[in-house]
């Protein structure tokens, strides 16, 4: 029989969490829905940017509800909500995941540098972190996206990812810096230094492995936050440029007519809610699995 390492133990604890398993299943379904977007497009014959004023709108100009040719209804311009929601899922997942990963990598690096280097570099990085946290992030993000007006979808997505990541780095780096400062005083780091290990070696071989739990938990909790951030930006018209759909922009554009057309609110809203709920539950499960001391009951779950 082999001894089980801490990551193995954490994985086994994670697997036992039924709420997390259900969340993973929901996310896989949403991912499949997103991946099959071209299929929905093909089956309905409605490209995501095409308008169908003839079939999608009633004579009064009201969008047609779910059923028949439009399984999830049409929006205020007569576009297919099903197809748009599927393409929107791609944007939400892609932006949320890549922004969170980017922020995690940058935040870990910045936090470790600040914590280990000390002196002027630490002061500079810490001030930068303070500065970013003091900025009204939503306002600055909207300002950024509207000043650099971008029309191509690819550039718009990249820009949104960068904006979301940028404003998530500071909080991340601050936590990691604190952690590094605490680890630095521990005996095993002292021992490594006495053995003649270089700074780079201490950083990679001694400190980094001890940060993995913290980094994993923070990243897992960052993903739903990043998805919400993107949706909020797009809702305000400062995210992914139209006609590329995103759940946020669908909610924003439908805002004027959803009082009579509930599906414009319900479809993207429910998808967004399910996604963030699932990611939040997975994040909680990851935290409980990696830090078993409190146990789920002590944590508000």
């Amino acid at each position: 029989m082999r001894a089980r390492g801490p990551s193995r133990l954490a994985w086994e604890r994670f697997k036992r969490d039924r709420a997390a398993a259900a969340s993973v299943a929901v996310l896989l379904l949403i991912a499949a829905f997103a991946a099959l977007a071209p299929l929905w497009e093909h089956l309905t014959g409605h490209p995501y940017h095409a308008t169908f004023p003839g079939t999608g709108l009633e004579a009064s100009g009201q969008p047609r509800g779910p059923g028949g040719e439009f399984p999830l209804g049409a929006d205020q311009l007569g576009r297919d909500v099903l197809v748009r929601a599927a393409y929107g899922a791609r944007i939400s997942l892609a932006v949320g995941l890549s922004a969170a990963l980017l922020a995690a990598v940058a935040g870990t690096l910045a936090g470790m540098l600040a914590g280990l280097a000390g002196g002027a570099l630490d002061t500079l990085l810490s001030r930068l972190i303070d500065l970013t946290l003091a900025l009204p992030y939503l306002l600055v993000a909207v300002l950024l996206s509207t000043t650099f007006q971008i029309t191509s979808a690819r550039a718009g997505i990249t820009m949104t990812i960068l904006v979301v990541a940028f404003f998530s780095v500071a909080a991340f780096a601050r936590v990691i810096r604190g952690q590094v400062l605490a680890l630095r005083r521990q005996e095993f780091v002292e021992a490594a230094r006495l053995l003649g290990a270089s700074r780079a070696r201490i950083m990679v071989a001694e400190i980094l492995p001890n940060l993995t739990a913290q980094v994993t938990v923070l990243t897992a909790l960052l993903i739903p936050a990043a998805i919400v951030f993107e949706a909020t930006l797009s809702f305000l018209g400062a995210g992914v440029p139209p006609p590329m759909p995103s759940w946020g922009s669908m909610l924003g554009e439908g805002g004027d007519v959803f009082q009579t057309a509930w599906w414009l609110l319900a479809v993207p809203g429910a998808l967004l809610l399910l996604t963030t709920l699932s990611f939040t539950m997975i994040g909680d499960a990851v935290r409980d699995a990696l830090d078993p001391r409190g146990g789920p009951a002590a944590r508000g779950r």
Partner: protein
Amino acid sequence: MARLAARRVLHAVFMLWLVATLVFVFVHVSPVPVERVLGGPRATPETLAQIRANLGLDRPFPVQYWCFAGRLLRGDLGDSYVTGAPVTALIAARLPTTLCLIAGGAVLWFAGGVALGMLGAVKARTLWDRAAAAFVLLGLATPPFVMALALLYVFSTRLTESGVHLFEAGPPLEADFLRRMILPWIALSFLMLATYTRLTRAAMLDVLGEDYVRTARAKGLPERRVVGRHVLRPALTPVVTQFGIDLGALVGSTIVIEKVFGLQGVGQLVHQSIAAGDTPVIIGVTLLVTVCVITANLVVDICYSLLDPRLRHR
């Protein structure tokens, strides 16, 4: 204590200057020139030059910055490019709505979060606790603008038809005050309420595990007194810290709530100004919000060292 406070204030002023400069530089290097926005697509080069001259944009960059900084020190944020009105007046006109929104929301989320968190901690592992936890999870996962849209749909569209009238659009500070603000307050505070429930619960459980709580119980103190006198104060310290920080940062999220409910607050002002390229208003509001965030942090820092004597001598 005084030295610590002085250092904090100095730091706050420095941050403010840094943000002001940053926003100024950023807005002025933006690739979409202001005269294009104001002059429209068909403006002749002469008109564009005239607009630049009128706004003082033809002067060298350092001179513009100098004027900006000088005016800022006198409390003058300049005039709006679009309406020509002073930015301070524009903001002052919108500020009451936003403050009212934030104040109501903050009361709701702090009181609600602390109450639910206490419930969860005192009755840990019971049905109450589980119900609170489910509520928290839902709150954490709901983006404020989705909450706002859902509330608006349910209460303003569905229920109005059946006679329940809960939301009324219009200026918030007049008649029917509650009816106008209750939904925006809920929408603004829902996510925060969840966060605070979790925060309070975790902090209280930590303190409940301390030795001196066991001592207090062993002395035969009633549970009400143990929680009220010995647990609440230390448990609330981190919660209050977070409250100060979030309060300032919240001004940003009001943009979304104001947009959904059609409240004419500062958030709407800046959202419209960004679309119109109205640089002075954008800078003005950004500075205002930054002042709020920095002041909130400052107050929290100082309060924290008053509450916790250990921090005074760092």
